[in-house]
């Protein structure tokens, strides 16, 4: 089976957060929950400063601390060696959240009746339509758009990227576009020294 992974090219990412919003719309995640986020920062001193951005979501580690920390086996590797959560087995203990060095997980803690998109109003029909995918009391995170990928589509964040800064594909295939781009751009994972072996790679992390 393919080992799905992703490359994010920070050399051209503009931090528009289309990826984060695409993720919300694709998955209809509960209010205030982001499987994909963008961290904004800057480096350098005036007048040589630069704005910096870093999109972060589940890194789909091959040596995932969250999987090891899960007491019930809810967090597991799927057939593509991507990390998934079986909501039926998740007890909401949040050990996995503490273990994840990427802050990629969220607990669906709030009451969907009150924690709505538009505060003070009922859920929109959009939220209601997606609600069954988000049982209360479990931990959630990026699923690497499993359903889309099984239909031959790219993950929503990859498809929507306005600067073509995201690449998705089979990391086991040296001829896949993502594999070739990782080599070409010298991309490497985030927090590589932690030994988590992520399936997400970043180009432009260092000078």
């Amino acid at each position: 089976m393919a080992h799905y992974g992703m490359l994010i090219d920070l050399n051209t990412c503009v931090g528009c957060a289309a990826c984060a919003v695409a993720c919300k719309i694709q998955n209809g995640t509960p209010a205030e929950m982001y499987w994909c986020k963008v961290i904004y920062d800057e480096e350098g001193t005036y007048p040589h400063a630069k704005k910096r951005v870093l999109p972060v979501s589940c890194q789909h580690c091959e040596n995932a601390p969250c999987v090891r920390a899960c007491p019930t086996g809810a967090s597991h590797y799927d057939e593509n060696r991507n990390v998934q959560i079986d909501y039926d087995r998740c007890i909401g203990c949040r050990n996995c959240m503490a273990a994840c060095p990427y802050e990629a997980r969220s607990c669906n803690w709030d009451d969907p009746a009150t924690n709505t998109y538009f505060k003070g109003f009922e859920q929109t029909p959009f939220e209601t339509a997606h609600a069954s995918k988000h049982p209360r009391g479990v931990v959630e995170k990026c699923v690497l758009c499993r359903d889309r990928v099984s239909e031959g589509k790219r993950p929503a964040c990859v498809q929507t990227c306005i600067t073509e800064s995201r690449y998705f594909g089979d990391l086991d295939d040296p001829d896949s576009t993502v594999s070739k781009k990782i080599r070409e751009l010298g991309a490497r994972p985030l927090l590589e020294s932690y030994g988590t072996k992520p399936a997400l790679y970043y180009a432009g992390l260092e000078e």
Partner: protein
Amino acid sequence: MGLKENSITRRGFVASAAAMAVAAAAGAHLGALPQEAWCEPASAAGKLDAKDGEYHGYCAMCMERGSCGNITTVKDGVVVSIEGDPARPSNKGTLCPRGKGAIMNMYNPYRIKAPMKRTNPEKGMDVDPGWVEITWDEAIGIAAEKLREVYDRDPRELVHFYGFSAYESSHATFGHGEWCLEFGSPNESSGKGQMCSVHYGACYTMRAFPTVNYDSQYTKYVVALGKGMGGDLGSANGDGRASARALKGGMKVVTVAPYCGMDASAGEWVPIIPGADLSFIYGLMHTMLFELDSFDKDFVSNRTNAPYLIDEDNGGDYLRNKDGKPLLVDADGTLKAFDDPTLANPQLEGEFSYEGKTYPTGFMLFKDALADFNADWASEQNGIPAERIRGIAQELCDNACFGQTIVIDGEEIPYRPSCLFIGRGVTNHTDGTLIDMNARLINILLGNVGYPGGVQGSNAPTYKPDADGVMEPFNEAAFPKSFSYPPTNMELKEFMPHRHSINSMMMRVMCDPEHYGFDYKPSLIFSSGCNPIISNTEPSIAIEAISKVPYVIYHACYHMDEMALMSDLLLPESAALEVTTVYKFPGIETSGTIKDDKDFLMNAPGIVMKHGVGELYNTREGNEILLDIFERADLIHVLNNVANKGGCIGVPKGMGMAKTPYELDPNTRYDMMDMWDRCMKAKTGGIGLEYFDDPSHAIYPILPYKNEAAYYSSNRDKKTRFSLYLMQQKKVGDWLIPKIKATGRDPFEFVGVDIDELRRRYTALPYYPSDDLRPTFNAPAEYDLRATTFKKPFFLFRMGSMDQNPITRDFSKKFDPEFNAVLMNSATARAKGLSHGEQVVVESQFGKTKGVLYVTERVEPSTVCIGGTTGRRSPQLGDDLMEDTFFNELLCGNVGYIDPIDGAFDSTARVKVYKG
């Protein structure tokens, strides 16, 4: 490059997110009025009566309406997803965060869900209008009666605002004020346009509208001045893709700006004092001409009016022969008419005599005018080191590849991959037209205009020479047709014939028409999707002006915004996703090409169609509302005439149905779909809307060129000369100034400068106004800083109720430190004793706003920056919107604070900042 890994450590991330959340919650505001009367949960409306499936359309969530194709998915009566349409050459399946927000816009509980009329005559932001829901039949009847009444009495009493909010009926189809003019009122005004006076120079130099682009395919070096390359805009339409591909291909971008965003970070950031841009431009040109002696001499000699001899004793007109033709001196020293077929290579400099008298060339006068503006002088004005100004001039020339050509489609074409690229950030100043025009002259000196690698007019414009062989300015730069006093138009267009919009002055005139010479007062406002109260300067003046008009119809309103609170009749438009509409997408704003993407080049602009999912509420498509009103008022010929003249797909220009088999009978009421179908057939010669039945037909391309070589306008037209000596600008002054004098009025009250200064502004040559005339450099000492703004991808143009989108608002609160923030340089903050994260007030002479101080290294030290179009006066749009930073509150749109030629207000304000 790269982020340090520790920037995403758990502690660092959680701490920063929590800090922003607390700050945002601290000022939560609750509206004073009961919202229940009109505001109910979206779910109460039930489900859509729409079939499951995909609905192909175009995005309407930003000014670049129609630039992106989208596919909306409906399941069980609910819109469950929206994606970019892969079949559209512009966005190719991508969609930006605003476009994804269309679902939230549709399910926005704050929408106005039915027509309503006011029962409380008192108006104000904190006054309950006493809304009463009425039927569409009653609403149409009231609107028709009011329109007919004013039409019969005096059509000039109608004031029509149009804006972005409900684009289809307000900015397209019958928009851009066209129906108002046809109705008989000159008082149309773009309520959102004054912030974006970017058209004059493009219309003047290249007959390009709306603007001028860089060339992602070939440009190697760009100086971006007051303009982003696409990254900071965050659009899916191709701008972002174009800049990313060009950067990957080695393009270097030098961003000269007071704020360093993503575009500036992708290359070199050169901080500049906001409002001092003209000195930078002059410093560059001086360096090129006097120090480097480097410019495209062949282009300037043969493709511009620079070698034309100038008769200074004849008011600076061209020296003309007995046939009235301008004269030039050819390389061999002989005088020739500009169209002499033997003309080889006219001289730019020398001592030239004609009938015993010596004459300079336009180029010599141009160069003389720049003699004092060297880089050292420029540096004193704008804060950029003189050495760097000289360096940029050198790099522009070094990268211009003077003399080189490139072969495209078998044609050998001049290759000039170096340009200066400008935008709203520099044209919206009190000397904005001088900046606008002179910046474009740098590109003329570089010889890049309309050639590969250089600047391109939007949609590869077709040139047209005037009688002297020089580009005839068009559209907003066209020679004015008439002048009258008393003025005919409440924007005072007679006094500023090159205006884009002077809505801020119109508001002042509406407050006191008699003072400005009008013998009538407005009696009816008909706003189509336009909310000028927050889109321009000084909301209080707009509120006062609107309150003086007896009846206000808000057509194509969407939510209970400031304009709605000032209206008597609300005619709500449906959400963009709900209705089926047709539009002509004219091409994107920033890049004319995308590297290695011929599909984009050939198929990006054209006619597009949006298939709606049907209405959730008792709202209607805006054009159908208009048609009903005009039919009921027995005025349907007004709309039909507009459509026959200019068309009704997109901006009503250039798509007319008159004298085609599809011409409308003036007095017949057509359905909008029928009109769009006829208009498309008139344009295509018979292909109608059935074209879009095939989902793979995402666009019907309409292009003026047939291949890449022909895309380059200066390659298509190898003859028309560009203006280096701005003859028409001078001649408009010659024509206009005596007329203004003859009114006997103080010109300052109408254009903001005295007659002598106005004469200096309508100049053929570079001119630098005194600091006394530029409020950014002439403010009371206590206002020691300058406030300016920058684009934020989530909050642009005030379209699609963007600032209400709960996803992007919440995301911004959690993650974006620039949201609702006041950005200040760390050294400035230290000097003022201000700390990162504290609440501050930014106050100008005209208003104030507040925000969280964001201490940064990415702002020029004399500047504070506030990003995005946020800020509200209406308490009826959500609890926390009133707490948003509101940059426009700081600005002034009065005379003295606007450009005297195009009426742009200065988008930089002098301010003071203190804890608050």
